């Protein structure tokens, strides 16, 4: 085996043989699933039952406002005005919300209903309240205008809008697809950081262990740096492949069981349906159908790996230089900040890119190498074609990323070879600059 191969295999094997690597390979997907389930659990099961006190000034709502076990309505006692009812509401611990329906609400469109709270209700609860109030007003007006209720039901519709690209009919609902892109972008962000920081730690380890001088008397410092970057990068790809396989197995076996249990229709109150018997879509099925059929996994995975590698090579070279410049990890902060800013910026900008994936902001962020791995994967997830990202843009982005990482690796190599032999001195930016020049 060549010496570089030898170093790559050491860097690779010492990491994949670690217990933490093996543990994370299986725990990672589980944790992500767990986290997704936990957040959906927490956002749904915040309260079993709401006791809601209603002040109905028009006395027209009592028969038509939909009451349920979960959102239990009580009517404020007659003869008390709004202010007095507020006092009652404040004193009674059983009551969660106070809904105030002013006298003109049902007759005009200009009034606003009020909801007073002790603990702020979730947006879901707020949505439910406004939908039952709207529903009641509509029912009142249906009756008032002598419209037959079944006629009204047939008029009342709820459509889905399919947004389709005329040039490429595959490109449907690209904004929805973007969420797959966001998830992948977060992965790229996480992986780039996780593994480029590992490169930095590896460099610091060799420097503080004082073994580096022995090694660079056998191979050049640049070869050592590159071998380390390649070895750790392979660890990243291995981890990704294991995660993909474990996730696939889990999706097939465990995930559907959890989902069906979780999305039991009895728990899933579809509150904004005006009339109960209208068509209901099982969101679970829709999501699964969407993920399996509409997302084009094959090219997404290829580009994910390419952009991960590009971004990783770009950042890990710089991280290696930082590792070489310091004596201990605590000293890395000042150098890490400029590297994290573009990545965090890219994540923050991702939602704007989803909003308009063919804007010039989207274009530039997906071409500039320091943000492109994150933004481009979001755009690719939204589909390749006129509406989001064209193939030449992807090729240009990969090309720019490649020449930039070659450039930064060359610069990093210059800092690295000086840095690893300088002990006991905290390097400053001016030192780095000096090392670059020499």
């Amino acid at each position: 085996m060549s010496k570089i191969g030898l170093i790559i295999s050491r860097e690779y094997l010492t990491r994949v043989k670690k217990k933490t690597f093996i543990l994370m390979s299986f725990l990672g997907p589980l944790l992500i699933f767990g986290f997704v389930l936990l957040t959906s659990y927490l956002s749904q099961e915040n309260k079993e039952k709401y006791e809601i006190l209603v002040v109905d000034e028009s006395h027209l709502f009592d028969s038509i406002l939909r009451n349920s076990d979960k959102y239990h309505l009580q009517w404020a006692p007659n003869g008390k005005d709004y202010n007095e009812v507020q006092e009652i509401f404040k004193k009674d611990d059983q009551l969660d919300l106070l809904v105030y329906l002013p006298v003109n609400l049902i007759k005009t469109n200009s009034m606003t209903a009020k909801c007073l709270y002790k603990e702020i209700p979730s947006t879901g609860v707020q949505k439910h309240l406004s939908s039952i109030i709207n529903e009641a007003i509509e029912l009142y007006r249906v009756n008032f205008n002598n419209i037959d209720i079944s006629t009204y039901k047939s008029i009342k519709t709820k459509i889905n809008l399919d947004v389709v690209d005329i040039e490429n009919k595959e490109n449907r609902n690209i904004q929805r697809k973007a969420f797959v892109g966001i998830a992948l972008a977060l992965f790229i962000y996480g992986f780039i950081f996780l593994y480029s920081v590992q490169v930095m730690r590896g460099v610091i380890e060799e420097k503080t262990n004082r073994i580096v001088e022995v090694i660079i008397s056998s191979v050049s410092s640049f070869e050592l740096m590159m071998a380390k970057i390649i070895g750790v990068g392979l660890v990243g790809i291995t981890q990704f492949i294991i995660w993909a396989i474990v996730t696939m197995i889990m999706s097939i076996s465990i995930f559907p069981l959890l989902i069906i249990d979780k999305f039991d229709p009895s728990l899933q109150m579809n509150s904004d349906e005006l009339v109960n018997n209208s068509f209901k879509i099982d969101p679970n099925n829709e999501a699964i159908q969407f993920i399996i059929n509409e997302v084009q996994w094959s090219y997404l995975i290829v580009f994910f790996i390419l952009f991960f590698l590009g971004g990783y090579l770009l950042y890990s070279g710089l991280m290696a230089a930082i590792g070489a410049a310091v004596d201990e990890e605590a000293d890395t902060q000042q150098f890490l900040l400029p590297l994290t800013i573009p990545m965090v910026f890219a994540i923050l900008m991702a939602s704007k890119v989803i909003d308009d994936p063919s804007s010039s902001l989207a274009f530039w962020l997906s071409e500039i190498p320091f943000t492109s791995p994150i933004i481009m994967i979001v755009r690719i997830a939204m589909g390749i074609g006129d509406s989001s990202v064209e193939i030449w843009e992807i090729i240009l982005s990969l090309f720019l990323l490649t020449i930039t990482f070659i450039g930064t690796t060359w610069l990093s190599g210059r800092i690295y070879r000086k840095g690893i032999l300088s002990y006991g001195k905290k390097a400053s930016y001016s030192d780095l600059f000096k090392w670059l020049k020499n």
Partner: protein
Amino acid sequence: MSSKNIIEIEGLHKSYSNHKALDNINLSIGESKIFGLLGPNGAGKTTLIRIINQILEPDQGVIKFAGELLSRKHIHSIGYLPEERGLYKKMKVGEQVLYLAQLKGLSKKDAKHKLSYWFEKLGAETWWNKKVEDLSKGMAQKIQFITTVLHEPKVLILDEPLSGLDPVNSLLIKNEILELKKNNTSIILSTHDMNSVEEICEEVAIINHSKKILQGSINEIKKNYEEKLWTILYSGNQMNFTNAVWGGWELMNHIVLNENIKKAEIKLLNDFTINKFIKGIVDHVEILEINKKTPSINDVFIKATTDE
């Protein structure tokens, strides 16, 4: 002097951004010799060593290795034990020595074979599966020494090889160095331990302020630094001793060892001889012992580096 040189250095210059590390260094290192590379901290020794190891590039100058221009192919012919040295702490000793041996161009099979010889020789057989972090400092030093010599390099460069070793291990390593020399290994020894230099080096060079200020065999150098110094043990009155001979010498030091015995260190000036001095004092004090004082390498080092 050996007729053949393993390393020849001509006109070597190296500057860092803010200072000159090596200034026109010329040096020849004889084959199968132990060569002491001396100099105060920051004189440029480590830079010179790193250039020979091709870790750094010189700005100017030529280095020849066994008559050829130094190039990457010579890496396998050099064994280097840096002053700043260490091992991967989390790695097992066995895995680590195999790794380092392979980096020096040995096959895994050869490396294993040679390692078993060295591990036995230095009493490290039971350490193979230990983690480096579980070794004592002395044990780790032995492992480092083994990895330096394992590939049987023609030239060994040892930077402070004995620092941190207890006297027993220090002696052990010193003997190994002498044995390697016997087997035709050329050794460059950079150290501040002047006793070791005196004990095992045949030639030395002193570098100070990035320049070579001295090179030669130990005996030659000592001879050049000889200063007609004598120590005399006598019994009698000090006044009588000092006033016995007028001129031609200087009293460097005087110690009263006990009531009867005194020790004087004198330096003879110009052409004044020790015989004339003895003639002068012999009637005034009783001479117990006279010795010529030859300078130690330590004396030479201090004089050479402070006279500059």
